[in-house]
C-alpha cells in the first residue's frame, strides 16, 4: 500500500473511531471512557497547534502551555464574574456563554502570542527555546500571584459554559463539541500548511537565509504561525477549563509545555494528524502505567529518550511509511 493511501485509511479509521466511541463506551458500560477521550481530544488540539509551530514553522517553543493556560483562565475568570454577578474591573460583565467566552479566550491567547512571539522571534535556536520557556514561566508566576482568582489553588467553575442547542453538562454532548473543534482545527491547519503562506513558512523553517534571499520576510510568517498556534492552544484551554470545571497555574507550568511537545514528537512531527495519535498514546500510557505503579514517570522518562533516539518520525510516520 502506498504511503498516501495508508495515511488516508489511518485518518479515516481514526475519525470513525472517535465518532463511534461514545456508543461503544455506552455499549460496554464504560462511561468514563467518554471523559478520558474528551481529554485526549482537547490535548490533541493543543498538540496539533504546537505541531504547527514546531513541525511547520521550525519554532521550538517550550512555552506553549502558557496559551492553554490563558484560554483556561479567560474562561474561568469570566465564569467567576458572571457567577458572582460582579463586573470585571467594574465594567465588563462576566459571562457563561460559550459563544462569547470561547472566542474571547482564543483572541486573548492570540494577543499574548503576538506579544511573546514578537519578542522571542528576535532570536532563534537555543535562545528561542529558553525565551519562550521563560515568558511562559513569567505568566505562570503571574497566575500564582492572582490572589483574586485563587492564586496557587486555582479557580473552580461550578458548571460548564452554556452553548445554544447543546447541553455541555452532558459528557457526550461535550465530547462531540470537542471533536468538532479538533476536526475544524485540523482542517484549517491542513489547508494552512499547503497554502502559499504555509509554503513560505515551511521554506523559512528549512532555511531562513534562503527565504531572505528570495526577498521574503520570513519572520512575519513565523510570527503569524506562532499566533495561530497560540490561538489553537487558547481554544484547547477554554475546553479544558470546561471539562475539568477547574483551572490552576499548573496549566501554564512548563512541564505541561514539555508534555505537549512529547505528544507531538511521539505522534510524528509535522504531520498534523500524528499529534492526535501522540496525545492518545501518551495519555493512555500515563493512565495504564499509573494503574500498575505510582512511579510511572521513572519508566516514561527512558521510554521518551528511546523514542527520541530511535524513532524519529514518530508513530504516525511508522504507520504510514514503508521501509
Amino acid at each position, binding site marked *: 500500500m502506498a504511503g498516501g493511501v495508508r495515511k488516508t485509511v489511518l485518518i479515516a479509521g481514526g475519525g470513525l473511531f472517535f465518532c463511534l466511541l461514545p456508543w461503544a463506551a455506552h455499549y460496554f458500560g464504560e462511561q468514563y471512557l467518554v471523559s478520558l477521550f474528551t481529554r485526549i481530544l482537547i490535548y490533541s488540539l493543543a498538540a496539533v497547534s504546537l505541531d504547527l509551530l514546531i513541525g511547520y514553522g521550525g519554532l521550538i517553543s517550550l512555552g506553549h502551555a502558557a496559551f492553554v493556560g490563558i484560554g483556561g483562565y479567560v474562561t474561568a475568570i469570566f465564569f467567576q464574574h458572571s457567577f458572582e454577578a460582579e463586573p470585571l474591573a467594574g465594567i465588563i460583565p462576566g459571562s457563561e456563554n460559550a459563544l462569547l467566552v470561547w472566542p474571547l479566550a482564543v483572541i486573548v491567547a492570540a494577543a499574548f502570542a503576538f506579544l511573546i512571539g514578537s519578542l522571542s522571534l528576535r532570536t532563534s535556536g537555543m*535562545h528561542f527555546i529558553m525565551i519562550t520557556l521563560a515568558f511562559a514561566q*513569567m505568566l505562570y508566576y503571574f497566575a500564582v*500571584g492572582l490572589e483574586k482568582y485563587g492564586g496557587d489553588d486555582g479557580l473552580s467553575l461550578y458548571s460548564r459554559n452554556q452553548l445554544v442547542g447543546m447541553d455541555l453538562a452532558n459528557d457526550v454532548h461535550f465530547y462531540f463539541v470537542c471533536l468538532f473543534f479538533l476536526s475544524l482545527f485540523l482542517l484549517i491547519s491542513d489547508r494552512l500548511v499547503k497554502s502559499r503562506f504555509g509554503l513560505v513558512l515551511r521554506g523559512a523553517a528549512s532555511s531562513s537565509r534562503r527565504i531572505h534571499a528570495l526577498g521574503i520576510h520570513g519572520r512575519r510568517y513565523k510570527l503569524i504561525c506562532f499566533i495561530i498556534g497560540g490561538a489553537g492552544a487558547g481554544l484547547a484551554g477554554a475546553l479544558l477549563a470546561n471539562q475539568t470545571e477547574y483551572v490552576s497555574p499548573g496549566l501554564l507550568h512548563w512541564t505541561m509545555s514539555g508534555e505537549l511537545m512529547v505528544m507531538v*514528537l511521539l505522534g510524528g512531527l509535522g504531520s498534523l494528524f500524528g499529534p492526535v495519535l501522540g496525545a492518545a498514546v501518551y495519555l493512555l500510557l500515563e493512565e495504564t502505567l499509573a494503574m500498575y505503579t505510582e*512511579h510511572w514517570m521513572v519508566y*516514561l522518562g527512558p521510554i521518551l529518550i528511546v523514542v527520541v533516539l530511535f524513532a524519529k518520525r514518530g508513530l504516525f510516520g511508522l504507520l504510514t511509511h514503508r521501509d
Partner: protein
Amino acid sequence: MILLVEQLLNGLQLGITLFLMSAGLTLVFGIMQVINLAHGSFYMIGAYVGATVAAATGSFILALAGALGAAGVAGMAVEILVLRQLYKRDHLDQVLATFGLIFFFNEMTRIIWGKQPLFMDIPTWLKGNIELLPGLIYPVYRLAVIVVGAVVALLLWYLFSRTRLGMQIRAGASNRDMVSALGVNIKLLYTLVFGLGTLLAGLAGVMAGPIFAVESGMGESILILTFVVIVIGGIGSVRGAVVGALLVGLVDTLGRAFLPTLFRTFLSSSYADSVGASLASMSIYIVMAAVLIWKPRGLFPSHH
C-alpha cells in the same frame, strides 16, 4: 538603609547560586551546542546526597564532598550514556531527551527518599549570626555561601584564563572545529566540561539544602532562573553568566523586598501587596525582555 544592605546581601547570595548553576550550563550550551534541561536535576542530586550524608555522619564537610562527587559522577555518566548521542541531533531532540531525564531523576528521588521533603541542618560551626555593621545582623551560613561562591568564581576564572585546559575549553566555546583540528581529545574534553558543570550544580544544591526544603522537582525552578541568566548573559559566556547571575539575583530579591512597599505609597495596601508581589515575581522576566530588545544575543554574545 540596614534593610537595603541586608537585601543586597540576600540578592548576592541568590546571584552566587545562580552563577554556580549557569557557569557550567552556559559552557555546555556554548561548546557542545546542546540544550540541557536536566541541569537542575544535578542541583537536586547534590542537595539530596548532601542532606543524606549530613544526616548520617553529622559532618557538613563530608556532605559537601558526597554531594560534589555524586553530582559530578552522575553528570559524567549521563554525558556518556545519553548526551553524547545528542550532539549531532537538533535542539528539539535534545529538549525532549533531557526532559525525559528530568522525569527519570525526579521520580527516582521520590522512590529513594520518598515524597516528604528532607531538611538539612546548618552545621553548628556555621550557626548563629554575625554583626556586619552596627545594626546589621546577618546569618553566618548565608555569608559562608557568598564566600564559597566568590572563591569558586575566582577558581573558575583562574582555570579559564591561566590553565591549558581552560584555554581549550574557551577555544571550544568559540570555535569547536578549531579545537578538534588542534588534536584535543574532544570526547574527553566534553565529558570533563559536562562533569565540571554538574559538579558546580551539585555544589549549588548542597549549599541551598539548609536554606530551602530538599524535594523532588526542586531543580526546575532554579533551572528556569538559570536560563534567564544565560539568555541575559549570552550563551557560552562565563563572564555573561557572572553579570547575568548577579543581575537576576539582585533584581529578584530587591523586587520582592521593596516593590510591595513602593506600591503602597500610591495604592491601597491590600491591592498594592498583590500587585507588587505579582510584579516582583515577574521582574526578572521583564529585565530579560528588555535585554532582549536591546541585545537579542545577550549582553556578552560569543562569536560563532
